[in-house]
């Protein structure tokens, strides 16, 4: 069995899409998470299934685009099935993205025992876009939240 992991997903040249990467980098810089792997991924779905294979617990952080919510809004889902069906995970612009990976892994029985999703709502996703300050702030909050949860062994029974 591999170690538990935080997977930050995104493209750093597409503005708010980089939110997941920032969270992982903040955790790494703070040295706040021992015993966990911190990975940066593009969000290509089949690769995601590989990345979470054999891990007892995975925390996945991605930018989302939810109409009607302000940029920087943080959503947390402790059960992938509770994701609103119309949630647009930004990497769904890839052919086989995060949403497809979750659905396929569920069908094949390849979801990790514990999977927690953080979505950070963004608004600027064009190539070369500047990150929205509220998204930048939200990434820091999510990193702190994950660090605290790990510190308090919130997912310890599994990790």
């Amino acid at each position, binding site marked *: 069995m591999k170690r538990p992991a935080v997977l930050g997903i995104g*493209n*750093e040249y597409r503005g708010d899409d980089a939110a997941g990467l920032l969270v992982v980098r903040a955790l790494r810089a703070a040295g706040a998470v021992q015993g966990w792997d911190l990975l940066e991924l593009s969000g290509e779905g089949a*690769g995601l299934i590989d990345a979470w294979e054999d891990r007892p617990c995975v925390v996945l952080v991605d930018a989302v685009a939810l109409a009607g919510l302000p940029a920087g809004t943080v959503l947390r889902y402790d059960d992938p099935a509770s994701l609103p069906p119309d949630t647009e995970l930004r990497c769904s*612009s*890839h052919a086989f993205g995060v949403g497809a990976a979750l659905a396929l892994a569920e069908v094949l029985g390849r979801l990790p025992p514990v999977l927690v999703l953080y979505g950070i709502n963004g608004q600027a996703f064009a*190539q070369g876009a500047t990150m929205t300050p509220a998204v930048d702030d939200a990434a820091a909050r999510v990193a702190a939240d994950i660090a605290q949860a790990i510190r308090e062994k919130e997912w310890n029974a599994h990790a």
Partner: protein
Amino acid sequence: MTEPTAPGEGQATRVIEVDYLARVEGEGALYVRTEGDRVAQVDFKIFEPPRFFEAFLRGRRHDEAPDITARICGICPVAYQMSSVHAMEDALGITIDGPLRELRRLLYCGEWIESHALHVYMLHAPDFLGFQDAVQMAQAHPGVLERGLGLKKAGNLIGQLLGGREVHPINVRVGGFYRVPTRKELASLHDPLSRALDAARETVRWVRGLPFPEFERDYEFVALRHPHEYPFCEGRLVSSRGLDIAVSEYPTQFAEQHVARSNALHSRLAARVAAGEPGHYLVGPLARYNLNADRLGPIAAEAAHDAGLAPGCRNPFKSILARAVELVFACEEALRVIDAYTPPPLPHVAGELRAGVGHGCTEAPRGILYHRYELNADGTIADAVIVPPTSQNQATIEDDLRALLATRLALPDAELQWQCEQAIRNYDPCISCATHFLKLEVDRR
């Protein structure tokens, strides 16, 4: 999708609009207008943002280009790195050979395996079997999807070892690699790649049984061709109609043309345009196979033969078969490199900075990817040009759709839309390399 609008006098008028094309890398738009039983207009639109990366690279150090351009696409970062380093090495007069060259071929094998497995199993096969997507297909055929995921994982193992990490490889540099693997490290890939080779051969046997629509067109195929090898990074640019040029001649033989309806540039063969022809051409697995079938390894050649795939295939729906044969080739070639490997004395070759121009063209999974850089004397980038394969296939995709629609206008809107999407997916268009956002609209008047 909207409902058909009111028909005009003696004409069926319908509008089909789809917000995005599923299972296409990135997003763009397709607009189709029909008048009665005639296809009046087909526009495959790419909403290309300002050519961000070309502008972004200007003023950056030459050795930053491989890592920056690798971020253009999450599916084919190695292709961008390889075209980039070859162009830089061309500008600086650096030649790579021996084990370093072999390791680059191995890294490219990994990317082809990953990308082709993804496209064959997750994106394209569901079309042929009538499933909405890979998830639905997995419910009926879980073992098939597991085989695809296993193949993809084998490609990923190569990327992790040689690229330094599984996405956006960071180990590639101008002149070679930052670190090269030991013989023992590389040998650890032998067994997984052997199993992948078996799975790839099974893939060809499975794909050959898919129902291929009857459809052919007279394409001009364009690909790299090397004297001895199935092409990855080197060779001359050749076509099925006699083009045979050095990569450095690309800017004079291929013309990028701005099309008003799209922010992207369409590529044309300049000589054809000068002769009054459209100059459209096709790049990718079908072109590579048709122009290089005699360069496949023996196992891949046997797989192609057994599958009934022969040079001269002009059915774009059989691109999935060419892709499956290339999966076999990539596994076969990876094993050849792994088994023969002796580490080079140094992980990279040094070169002196100088002003100059360099060209690089390599075979991305979707077809040729051209890079051109102009360097200042201090090694900073004065100018950059990047032409991804999807831009080059864009006009041919439109031609396919025009021909396909002409014989299928009687189909209901939903089925017509489905066939259009399948035809576009023949090209595995990596639209995020050239653009983002894809919408489909069929306007019947």
